[in-house]
């Protein structure tokens, strides 16, 4: 592709030709001819500039990559062509880096690849010549900015060798091993010292019959806000003149269900878009993911069975391991929910439910209250989205609700729901690990 400089060069040559024609000065024809020669040869050399150039991207391979850790990437440029590998402009897009940081797009200039010990073409039969090709390595260390699934795009190489008259672009990629092409970065897990939801529960409750959300009738009790109208015992109402609800035996499974609130946004998911690229980690949802990871990890460490509830049914079924938890949380997208949060809660069967909500959807909160009414132990962690510098940088938008956590928290606490509100900058491990607010 000719550059602007080429056209200036061409214009100069044409002017010289005009001068030569007008003055009939032979040397001007020679200068013009030399310019033509330079342009043609520049084109030819430029075509060779990245010919047979191979690029290898190597990453320090580990079992797991966790947000905040550093990653070492090595790019190796190799060519065996003697006219290749000059004035290389390297554009390396590092998706695991901060979008707004310097390392997201890194650019290097390689004047020429290092001189080989011997050239391949120089080797003749019977001669033990070195055939080390021209090679250059670029190594850089980058912080894994945010959890997610990342695919390294191809390294872009261009060259305007030799004099900037032509530009040649090419995309070369050869990752070793191949599965390094995609990188799964786990969210950050912070250790919790305590979690009321799990730690305050007496062991006896795990075996004694108690009220819950089962089908077997257990007893009658006065109506409480949030009880289903279908559970009202109308004969007692007629007899006593007060609302009385039926109570059922708790048939829930032991363990904890963990659910993160995902926004329901009426947009099509862009499957081709680079996942997680370009998003800030300082959004309510990203903090929610970290909190969920920490809460889940705590439950698993305490030996509780952990079940994940997802609005899209994307979570693994049944009890999950730590790896499964982190893999799920690494991939979860904030605004692609197909099902309402309240609907997803219908699938909860576990005794304890931990819900991390980056929003204050009244319907979702009503569902959580209902869950509590049915006898589940419920932990609700709100993210105060107003306090966060960024709400959502995906460009898809998030719904807004009139009432924030400050409105709902007292109500939930009043109904016996364990509830925390996390603001941006809070040490949420301390807040969540705090002792029971009712104690």
């Amino acid at each position, binding site marked *: 592709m000719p550059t602007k400089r080429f056209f200036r060069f061409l214009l100069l040559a044409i002017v010289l030709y005009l001068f030569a024609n007008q003055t009939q000065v032979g040397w001007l024809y020679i200068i013009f001819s*030399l310019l033509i020669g*330079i342009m043609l040869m520049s084109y030819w050399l430029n075509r060779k500039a990245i010919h047979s150039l191979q690029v290898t991207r190597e990453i320090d391979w580990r079992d797991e990559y966790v947000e905040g850790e550093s990653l070492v990437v090595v790019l190796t440029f190799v060519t065996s062509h003697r006219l290749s590998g000059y004035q290389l402009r390297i554009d390396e897009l590092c998706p695991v880096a901060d979008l707004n940081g310097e390392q997201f797009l890194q650019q290097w200039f390689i004047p020429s690849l290092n001189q080989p010990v011997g050239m391949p073409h120089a080797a003749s039969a019977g001669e033990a010549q070195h055939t080390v090709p021209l090679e250059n390595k670029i190594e850089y260390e980058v912080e894994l900015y945010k959890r997610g699934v990342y695919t390294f795009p191809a390294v872009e190489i261009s060259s305007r060798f030799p004099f900037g008259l032509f530009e040649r672009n090419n995309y070369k990629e050869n990752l070793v091993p191949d599965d390094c092409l995609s990188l799964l970065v786990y969210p950050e897990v912070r250790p919790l010292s305590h979690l009321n939801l799990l730690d305050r529960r007496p062991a006896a409750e795990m075996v004694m019959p108690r009220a819950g959300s089962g089908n077997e009738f257990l007893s009658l009790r006065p109506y409480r806000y949030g009880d289903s109208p279908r559970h009202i015992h109308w004969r007692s109402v007629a007899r006593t003149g007060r609302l009385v609800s039926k109570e059922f035996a708790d048939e829930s499974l032991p363990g904890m269900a963990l659910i993160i609130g995902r926004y329901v946004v009426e947009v099509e998911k862009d499957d081709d878009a680079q996942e997680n690229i370009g998003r800030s980690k300082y959004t309510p949802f990203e903090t929610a993911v970290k909190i969920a990871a920490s809460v889940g990890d705590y439950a698993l460490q305490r030996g509780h069975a952990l079940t994940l509830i997802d609005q899209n049914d994307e979570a693994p079924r049944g009890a999950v391991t730590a790896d499964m938890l982190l893999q799920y949380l690494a991939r979860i997208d904030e605004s692609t929910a197909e099902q309402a949060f309240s609907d997803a809660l219908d699938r909860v069967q576990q005794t304890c439910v931990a819900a991390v909500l980056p929003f204050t959807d009244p319907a979702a909160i009503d569902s959580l209250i209902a869950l509590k009414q049915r006898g589940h132990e419920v932990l609700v962690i709100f993210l105060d989205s107003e306090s966060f510098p960024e709400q959502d940088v995906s460009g898809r938008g998030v719904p807004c609700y009139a009432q924030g956590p400050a409105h709902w928290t007292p109500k939930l606490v009043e109904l016996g729901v364990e509830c925390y509100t996390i603001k941006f900058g809070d040490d949420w491990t301390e807040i969540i690990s705090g002792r029971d607010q009712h104690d």
Partner: protein
Amino acid sequence: MTALLAKYRSRKNAPAETSLELRWLLFGGMAIAIIGLGITGGIFMLPFAAVALIILWFGHRYASRNCRAPSKWVKRGVFLAINFAFLYMMVGLAVGLPYPQGQMAMFGMALISWEMMNRGNMYAGWLFVLANLHVTATLSRGFFFFVPLLIAAGCFLAFMWVIEKLDAADAGYKPVAEPKPFWSSFKPSLNLATNKEMAPIFRWGASFGGMAFLVGIVAFIAIPRFAGTPLVPPFTLRVPMSGGAQGQIINPAVPLVQVEGVNNSEAGEYYHGFDSQLDLSYRGGLSTATMMYVRSPARSYWRSHAYDFYNGRSWVQSAGDAVTIVDKNIAEPSFMLTQDPPPGEQFTQTFYVVNDLPNIAFVGGSPVEIFIPAEQIAIDSTGGIRLGEVLESGMTYSVRSVATRYDPALLRLTGFDYPLDIRAKYLQLPDTVTQRTRDLAADLTAGHETAYDKAMAIQEHLLTSYPYDYFPPPQKPNSDSVDQFLFVDQTGYCEHYVSAMVIMLRSQGVPARLVSGFGSGQYDAINNLFEVRALDAHSWVEVYFPGYGWVPFEPTPGWTGSPDISNINTWILGGAMSAIDLPAIPFGAIGSAVATVFSVTLTPVLIIGLLVGLWFAGRWAWQRYQDYLATRPPVYTKLQDLDQQPSRGQVLTHYRKVQKQRDALRDPEQTTQEHADIYTDFDELADLVDIAAYRPEPPTDEELNKVLE
């Protein structure tokens, strides 16, 4: 216009160029251009070149150290110095100094080096290098120019290489290694296994240099050349000749004491044919001194004038100093020699006078127009062009001519019906012409019915029967020169052969005359020049044919040239190919066609290109203006315009009123926001005031009501 101005300002305020690599390379290119010009210009130019080099060195030194904060006084000084150099050039041209334009080019470039502050300046610096090389190329007469050209080209390419590195850095590309200046890589060893720093340069540089050179040679051979009338007529800055045209021929090399038969001139290269009389008793050869260079796309004899009257020992012009004066047309840069040029291809020759020559303009072919710095010229009776002053060394003039060619078959068809004036003048024979001369002519032409065949028969006899000799025996007293040549000496030089042919033709009733001038000279394909030396001074025969005019003949043996005009070369190998019988591959015709198409289409293409360019430039300027309008800061609404937008006035009035009511007047130095910082209940009102004062759209009713309520 605003956008253009902004662009100009941005360039003017371009970042200072601190790269020493670039500066050294530019200095190298400029220095070699000055040195090349100095050497090409000769001994007189060398001191100027030395001074220019010193100025150049200090200029770059100053620019390198002060590129971030150049002195205005230096800038003014450079401006004055360049103007002074230009003035010097004009004076030099007036007084006839050698190559004042070359000196101007050198000093201009040296002075401009003081202004090489940013990269844009440096690019412009290379244009100055090119301009100097152009001047050197124009003055160059040999192959030496290859040396400065290749070195300057090398510096330029290295400059471009470094620029590429710097451009990458400017675009945000980090170097993988600590950048080092290119000279740190230089090692004398050519062993690439050990000289790793230089290996890459050799590796591609050899390929590039060699191939670029070869491609350049092919391009040089293949590109078409222009041979017709130049778009910009040849001109010279030289002050026009002061004297009016005169009929007398002034030969600057004419010896003070003319000893018959010997050329003893010490004043210069004196050819006795460039005079009003040609004495056939002269003897001796001429030197190899270069008299002039002729840049011409066709080989030709360079004719000066002719002689019509023979007195037995010499030739003279019977009309003497009688000439026709031709004044320069004010509207034209040239003298038209004929309003009715003969049919045929036209070609332009440019003559560079190296040694002083007589006040005769030498021309090739049939001249149509002459571009020469004179107010008047004179045409003698034989078509010779005489000037007011002698042709001094360094003088340049151009001639547009028709390449007249004659078909022998057509010439044979012409009869002997000559005009009376031609008969009267060109059939003249003196009494000294011997009977045996007439008899020989009759014998040679016996059986030849046409004038052309008679001329060819005599020419053939002279070419084959008489050996050439610069030093024939001395002319005997009271003898006829032609008779002595033909029957006594039987050897001689060109004037003797020509005289013999003219006299014999006249004796057979065919009008003929002796013409003097220069042979075409040695052709230099690289320089595209004919080098005409003193020994190329020559004479030949012109025979008159009714309907065709004067046709040249060459009776002198051993002379390699031909009075016929060669094919007009419209590419470098045109001449060579014309000598090879390749009828199936009409290279010359293709070249001519390309050149013709080029010459015919260039003017309309230029006009169309100019119009299209103007249209694009206008569109571009309009777009930039629209962009500016779209992004320009909001215009203040004048108070008198508030009536048109009442909400603005309403807000401002309310603002003043509230200030008074609350005794919270704003100081004139305070902005509304600073005032609101002190009186916090003014927050919303201050925002609205800013909207009313500065936003292009006036406050909406909603905004207004919110605050006013």
